């Protein structure tokens, strides 16, 4: 307990005023159950107030602090120092911005740019089916919900998009696909045709090469590739034949 570690962090920096990038090393001592966001804050407080990094909730619920740590896309707020040392077997960490959008400064990327792809996949209900119970809720059985509820947990941290081997070829990306697949499975969505078009479009599902990197890195543990595979088969009933009507 209460062990602390001498860390060496090599952080990719970008100065937009001078359009200049470089890697800066920081040596810092940090307690075992500090998180990487705590470590960044410690750097700001003790070594360098100018290092810019992004976060919001800092408990893995908003997906703002995604960075690449030794090449792996993860949320800085949920990586404890002692776990990082165990996982990577080192106290040296290379940290760089997640490569899904242009860098604004240092580790901060332009999330708005990244989100454009999610926006394109229309995460909302495009057109509601008629509700048999006017003024009440739609009836959705827990079994139906079970088929896609896992996918609704996505926080758009873009870790999956960062590791996806197809992302740079115009693919809207695993999380954007997931948002659309949820609505394909959601019985309240009435506009399935447009959704199918979207999913099977030039920038859609068939760009996916099933590397399954998405499922591997998802901080929420969502099996993204599973949902993409179902959608490729056109199986929006969740691959459980016994429950099909």
């Amino acid at each position: 307990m209460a062990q602390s570690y001498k860390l060496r962090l090599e952080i990719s920096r970008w100065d937009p005023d001078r359009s200049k990038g470089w890697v800066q090393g920081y040596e810092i001592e940090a307690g075992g159950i500090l998180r990487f966001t705590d470590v960044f804050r410690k750097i700001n407080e003790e070594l360098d107030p100018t290092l810019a990094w992004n976060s919001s909730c800092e408990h893995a619920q908003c997906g703002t602090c995604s960075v690449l740590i030794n090449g792996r896309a993860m949320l800085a707020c949920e990586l404890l120092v002692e776990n990082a040392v165990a996982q990577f077997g080192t106290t040296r960490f290379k940290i760089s911005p997640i490569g899904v959008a242009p860098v604004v400064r240092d580790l901060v990327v332009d999330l708005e740019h990244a989100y454009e792809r999610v926006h394109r996949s229309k995460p909302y209900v495009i057109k509601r089916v008629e509700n048999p119970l006017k003024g009440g809720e739609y009836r959705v059985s827990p079994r139906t919900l079970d088929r896609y509820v896992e996918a609704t947990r996505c926080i758009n941290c873009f870790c999956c998009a960062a590791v996806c081997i197809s992302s740079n070829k115009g693919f809207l990306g695993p999380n954007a696909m997931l948002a659309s697949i949820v609505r394909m499975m959601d019985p309240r969505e009435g506009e399935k045709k447009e959704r199918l078009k979207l999913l099977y479009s030039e920038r859609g599902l068939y760009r996916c090469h099933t590397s399954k990197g998405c499922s591997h890195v998802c901080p929420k543990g969502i099996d993204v590739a599973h949902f993409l595979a179902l959608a490729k088969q056109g199986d929006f009933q969740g691959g459980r034949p016994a429950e099909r009507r």
Partner: protein
Amino acid sequence: MGKKLRISSKTECDALIIGAGGAGLRFGVELLEHKPGLKIVAVTKVGHPQKSHTNTAQGGLAAVDPEDPFDDPVYHMFDTWKGSDCSADQNIIKKIVESAWEQVIWLENHGMHFSRNEEGRLSKRTFGGHTVRFGEASAFRAIYEADRTGKGIMDTLWFEALKGGISFLNQSVATELLFKGNRCAGAVIFNQKNGKFVTVLSKVTVLATGGSGQLYRVTTNCRQNTGDGVGLTLRAGLPVMDPEAVQFHPTGIVGPGILASETLRSVGGILRNKDLEPFMERYAPAMKELAPRDLVARAIENEIREGRGVVNPDHKIEHVWIDLRHLSDYVHDVQIPEVSGFFKKFVNLNPKKDLCPVRPSNHYHMGGIPTDEFGRVMADKRRPIDSLFAVGECASASFHGFNRLGTNSLLELITMGKFAGQKALEYLDQGVESPEGKPGEKTFGLFSQFLEANGKESVFTLRRELQSLMTEKVGIYRRASGLEEAMERIRELRERAIHAPIENKSLLMNQELILRWELENLLWLAFATARAALERKESRGAHFREDYPERRDEYHHHTLVRMERFGRLEISSRPIDMSLYNKKGAHWERFGILERKY
């Protein structure tokens, strides 16, 4: 340095939303439902609206199902009134509670993924302080989406905002409100991504900037919750209501302060001290772990103060335990997976096998920008400002009084967002106004001071010092001497802050600059909070004075604080609305001044 700050452009819109969390976007979406195609600009401090603090709410939102044979809106009204320590406004309570179910249905119909029961209808569960038949038994009134209800609401709202064509200014803050006479004309916005200041003129403006948890050392709030809207309001010469009403959630996870939801207690989690005694039995014999938040928080703090706490060796923070070991795997895996997972992720513990460390953490600000029942910002006791609204945590209507019940904040933000949006429609026929004075003048005064400071102080250190001071002197337990000391020290901190330099002088995504601006907002709010807490020589809800431990009827009113210049404060009061009691309708006698026992 020497860089001349200037307004780089001016835009006009129908509605300006400052803070694009749940409340702000519910406001915008309401406008669009009535008038599609409106030009709405939403400013958010985070990278994308989905990253807002609303997103982190876990437990649920309270709403009485009209088909529920056991529950009734009047019970919900009673619980809210009693929970508020008889300090909420009864007209607001009635209005919000009565529209709760309709708003839940609105969310469901717009695609929110609520948890379902076997019939495919919305699941319900119990929550602290919510009862049926005026306290007789726990009410199944919390509608929820697993333990990520806030995310469900936030997603539904940004989806609808996207669908309706609201345009977003992400990673931006409002630095100055603009007025023409009694009317708000818009605001000056600083966009961090391009380093530019812009003037946005609008027919209606809504403040929905969220809370101020960063005022305290341990908080469940997001990094950006720094009381910006309250700071803005105070500097505009407008009052703030009940700043001293600050809620501490009983169970923050040691040490990041992450919220371990009430859900843990409503599914059967037990609080234990270092002797493993289930101590809540001593404090609230009937409700025990499900008593309202302020009672549970004080109980834990008291256990710690009397030496029955445990010290965490890594964080050196004292805490008690929450025991979840007896709960079934089903409860762990299905009902509380995210929260239960927090202990694994953030402190390397397994709640199925290990006791988990929790302690009270700053959680919610009941006080805020005073509004009427339509969410209109009040210039004083009676007069609303034209076309300026405030909703969500930064506002105070007041639905929560001096203590908020769990699941009532999500309810408040969607209902007040809707009511304010509805009212705002009335202001859309007028054109935009040119504001009086020079837009940007106040902003540039502040920002050039920030950029030109060249002393030896550190913004980070000052913020930490302020947080520790507020935690110790203006926290769960307060007394006159401590509050006076706090005010003195907040003045000193502000003096020192004036000399705190910023190393990077750029305007582009300069987080030092934003931190400095946040510190200013925090200092303003801190001073107002300490001063109002000193004025209130009684204990009421979350405001607990060791030197005045009882509630006193002479303080049965809201505090109004005005502070146009730092440290120069005017205190007045606003009466608490007692219309449910005074109108003598059904059960009116339940809405008098009640003793608060659980």
